[in-house]
C-alpha cells in the first residue's frame, strides 16, 4: 500500500479527480446553458420571423388598400364622366334624330357604354359602388341593358320576356354581371355563333340562363371559375394578371354583395358554357300592375272628353255595369299590354289620335258661322268663278284642262 502512497501518480490522480469533476460539472453546466440560450435564440428568431411576415403582410395590405382607394377615386371620376357623356349623347341623338349623323352617334353611344362598363368593373374590384338606379326596372330591360354593354351585342339573342322586375338597388349590379358573362361568352365563341339568353322562373326566384356555342371550359378552369364566382376570397387588384382578367372576380364580388348566385359549371346545349344567374325573390318585384287601371280609365270612362265621332260607340257592357267600367272591367277594346315604360314608369296613354287626317265619320263642325250665311257666301263665290271663266273662256282654254 505504501508503495502506492509514494507513487506520485496516485497523488496526481487524487489531486486531479476533483479538478476533473469540477471541470466536467462546469462543462455540463455550460452545455445546458448554451442549450437554453439556443432555445431562446430560436424563439427569438421565430418571433422575429413572425413579426417580419406580419409586417410584410401589413405592408402588402396597406399597399393594396392604397391602390384600391386611388383606383376607386379615379374610377368614380370616370364613371361620372361616362354617365354624363351618355346623357349628352342621348340629347344629341334626339336633336339630330333625322340626320345621317345619328348612325355615328349610336356607335359612339355603344362605345361609351362599353367604356362605362370597364370603369364599373374596376370600381367593383376596388370595393366601389356602381351607382344606384332610382327606379325598379323590368328584367327584360336589365338584360337588354347588359347586352348593350358588350362589343358584339348583335350576337346576343334574348329568347324570352318576363313579367318580373328587379328592385332598383340591384339593377346595375345584375346588368354588370350579365354584361361580364356575355363578354366572356362572345369572346370565347366563334364570331358567327349566337349567344342565347333565356329567362326562367324557378321556385327560388328567377334564373337568367346564358348559353354560348364556344369551346367550353375544362375541369381546372371550371374549378377556378367556381372559386372566383363564390366571392369567398376578397378581390385583389394585384393578382389579376396581364392582360387583366377580372370578369369572374367582379361577378363573384357582386354576387356576394347583393346576395345572388352565378354558376358556370354546366355545359350549354351547343357545347359551350352555360352560365346561370339565380336571382332570389328579395331582388325581384313584379312590374307595376296599377297602371292598368289609369290607362283604361283614360280611354274609356271619360266619354265627355273624347272628341265626337272618334269613339262614339260605347264600350260593351258599360250601361250594364257603369261603376265597374271605371276600373277596367271593360277593356276588351284596349290592347292588353304591359303598361310601363322602359324605365318602369307608368305609361301615359293618349286619348285619341291627334292626327290631322280627317276620318270618314268626322263631320267637320264649323261652330261660329250659321249654315245660311255659309251657303250664301259659297254661292257667291261659285257664281263669281263661273262668271270669271265665262268672260275669258276662249283665252284660257289652253291651260284650263291640263
Amino acid at each position, binding site marked *: 500500500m505504501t508503495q502506492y502512497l509514494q507513487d506520485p501518480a496516485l497523488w496526481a490522480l487524487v489531486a486531479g479527480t476533483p479538478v476533473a469533476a469540477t471541470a466536467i460539472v462546469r462543462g455540463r453546466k455550460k452545455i445546458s446553458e448554451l442549450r437554453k440560450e439556443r432555445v431562446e435564440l430560436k424563439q427569438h428568431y421565430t418571433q422575429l420571423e413572425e413579426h417580419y411576415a406580419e409586417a410584410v403582410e401589413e405592408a402588402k395590405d396597406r399597399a393594396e388598400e392604397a391602390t384600391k382607394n386611388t383606383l376607386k377615386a379615379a374610377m368614380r371620376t370616370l364613371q361620372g364622366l361616362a*354617365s354624363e357623356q*351618355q*346623357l349628352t*349623347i*342621348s340629347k344629341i*341623338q*334626339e336633336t*339630330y*334624330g333625322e340626320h345621317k349623323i*345619328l*348612325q355615328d352617334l*349610336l*356607335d359612339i*353611344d355603344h362605345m361609351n*357604354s362599353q367604356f362605362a362598363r370597364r370603369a364599373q368593373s374596376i370600381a367593383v374590384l376596388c370595393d366601389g*359602388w356602381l*351607382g*344606384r*338606379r*332610382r327606379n325598379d*326596372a323590368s328584367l*327584360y*330591360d*336589365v338584360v*337588354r*341593358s347588359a*347586352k*348593350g354593354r358588350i362589343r358584339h*351585342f*348583335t350576337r346576343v339573342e334574348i329568347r324570352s*320576356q318576363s313579367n318580373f322586375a328587379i328592385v332598383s*338597388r340591384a*339593377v346595375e349590379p345584375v346588368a354588370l354581371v350579365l354584361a361580364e358573362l356575355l363578354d366572356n361568352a362572345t369572346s370565347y365563341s366563334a364570331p358567327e355563333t349566337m349567344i342565347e339568353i333565356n329567362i326562367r322562373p324557378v321556385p327560388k326566384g328567377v334564373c337568367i340562363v346564358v348559353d354560348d356555342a364556344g369551346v367550353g371550359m375544362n375541369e381546372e378552369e371550371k374549378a377556378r371559375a367556381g372559386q372566383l364566382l363564390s366571392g369567398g376570397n376578397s378581390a385583389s387588384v394585384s393578382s389579376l394578371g396581364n392582360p387583366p382578367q377580372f370578369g369572374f372576380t367582379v361577378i363573384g364580388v357582386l354576387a356576394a*354583395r*347583393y346576395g345572388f348566385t352565378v354558376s358556370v359549371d354546366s355545359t350549354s346545349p351547343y357545347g359551350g358554357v352555360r352560365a346561370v344567374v339565380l336571382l332570389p325573390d328579395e331582388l325581384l318585384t313584379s312590374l307595376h300592375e296599377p297602371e292598368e287601371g289609369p290607362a283604361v280609365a283614360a280611354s274609356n270612362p271619360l266619354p265627355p272628353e273624347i272628341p265626337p265621332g272618334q269613339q262614339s260607340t260605347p264600350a260593351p257592357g258599360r250601361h250594364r255595369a257603369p261603376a265597374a267600367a271605371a276600373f277596367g272591367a271593360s277593356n276588351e277594346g284596349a*290592347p292588353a*299590354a*304591359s303598361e*310601363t*315604360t*322602359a*324605365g318602369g314608369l307608368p*305609361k301615359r296613354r*293618349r286619348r*285619341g*289620335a*291627334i*292626327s290631322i*287626317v280627317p276620318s270618314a265619320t268626322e263631320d267637320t263642325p264649323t261652330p261660329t258661322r250659321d249654315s245660311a250665311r255659309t251657303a250664301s257666301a259659297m254661292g257667291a*263665290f261659285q*257664281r*263669281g*268663278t263661273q*262668271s*270669271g*271663266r265665262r*268672260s*275669258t273662256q276662249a283665252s*284660257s282654254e289652253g*291651260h284650263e284642262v291640263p
Partner: protein
Amino acid sequence: MTTDDEPELVQEAAELVRPYVITNGRDLVEDSAFSLLTLVTVAQEPPHQKPLDPEKQRLLELCAGGFLSIAEIAGHTGFPVGIVKILVFDLTEEGHLYARAPIPSAQLVERQILEEVLNGLQARFG
C-alpha cells in the same frame, strides 16, 4: 357589407336601354322609305307572333287611335326620329303597321286663274 351608403347616380340617369340596343344595331332606314310626315296606323289584321319588344308594343298602342305621323311618334316616345323610322319600318314589314305617304300639300293654282276669279268677283259684286 351594407348597401345603405351606396350613392344614387348623381345626375339624372340616361335611359337604361340604349337606342342602339332597341334597334339591335340596325342601320338607319333609307331616307326614301319614310319621311317625317309619313302616316302610320295599326294594320287591320295584325299577325299573331311572339311578344314584341316593349317599345314596339308602345308604338302600336300609340297608333291604335288613328293615323300618326313619324314626327308625332318621335315626339310621344322621345326616341330619335331615325330610331322611330327603323321601328316603324320593322313593324310595317311584319304587318303590324300600315304606312301611307303623307297627304300632298295643295298644288299651287296658276296666278292667271286667280286673277280671273278676282276680276269676275269684282265685275259681279264690285
